[in-house]
C-alpha cells in the first residue's frame, strides 16, 4: 500500500458497506413490524410431535392435522413440542417458527382471504418428517 493510492478499492468497500447498512436497516424495520403482535390476537396453542400437529383454540376445542381460522381476525400461535424439534410453517402466509421442547415460541398472522393452505414441518424430525403436514382452512366468520 506504500506510496500507491488504492482509491478504487476504497470506494468499492465504501459502497459495499453502504449497501450492507441499507440491508440491515430495511431488515430491522421489517422485522420490527412483523414481530409486533396485535393486542386483540386470539391465541392458538400448537403442539408439534412426531409426526403431527395438534391445535388448541382459546375456547378449548382441539384439532389434529387441521386448523380452522376465520377471515379478518388476528391469531397468535404459541408453539410447543413434546418430543424433538419441529418447525411450524404455513408457507403461504410466511408463518414460521421452530417448536422446541421446553420452550414456547410465538408467531402471529391475520388471514385475509377464504382458502386452504398447507401446513408443514420444516425442521428435520425423523422418519416421517417429510409427511408431517396439515391443512389450514380459512373460513368466513360464523358469528
Amino acid at each position, binding site marked *: 500500500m506504500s506510496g500507491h493510492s488504492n482509491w478504487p478499492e476504497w470506494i468499492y468497500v465504501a459502497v459495499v458497506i*453502504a449497501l450492507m447498512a441499507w440491508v440491515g436497516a*430495511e431488515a430491522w*424495520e421489517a422485522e420490527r413490524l*412483523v414481530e409486533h403482535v396485535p393486542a386483540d390476537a386470539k391465541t392458538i396453542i400448537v403442539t408439534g410431535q412426531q409426526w403431527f400437529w395438534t391445535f388448541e383454540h382459546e375456547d378449548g376445542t382441539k384439532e389434529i392435522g387441521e386448523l380452522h381460522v376465520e377471515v379478518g381476525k388476528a391469531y397468535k400461535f404459541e408453539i410447543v413440542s413434546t418430543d424433538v424439534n419441529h418447525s411450524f410453517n404455513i408457507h403461504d402466509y410466511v408463518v414460521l417458527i421452530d417448536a422446541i421442547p421446553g420452550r414456547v415460541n410465538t408467531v402471529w398472522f391475520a388471514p385475509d382471504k377464504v382458502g386452504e393452505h398447507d401446513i408443514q414441518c420444516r425442521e428435520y424430525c425423523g422418519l416421517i418428517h417429510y409427511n408431517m403436514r396439515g391443512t389450514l382452512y380459512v373460513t368466513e366468520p360464523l358469528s
Partner: protein
Amino acid sequence: MKFIFGFLLIIGVLVIVPAVDFAFAAGDEPGKYLDRRAVIWNLFYKMMTVAFTVGSVVSGTIIWQVWRFRESHPKAKPTSYEGTDW
C-alpha cells in the same frame, strides 16, 4: 471525495427518511392488521432488485474481462510484468 459524500447523503435521504417515517407511522388500530406477507415479500423483492443489479454489474465485468483479456484477443498485449521477476 465530495462526490462520495454527496452520493451517500442522497442515498441517506432517499432510504432512511421514508423508512423512519414508515416505522413511526405503524399504528395499532383494532381490526386492521399488518399483512406480513406484504412486508416480508416486499423486503425480499427490494433485496432481489439490488442483488440482481449488483450481480449484473459484477458478472458483466467478469464476463467482459474474460472476453477482452484472453490471450487470443486481437488486442492482447504482454503485460508489463512478463519476462521480469515481478
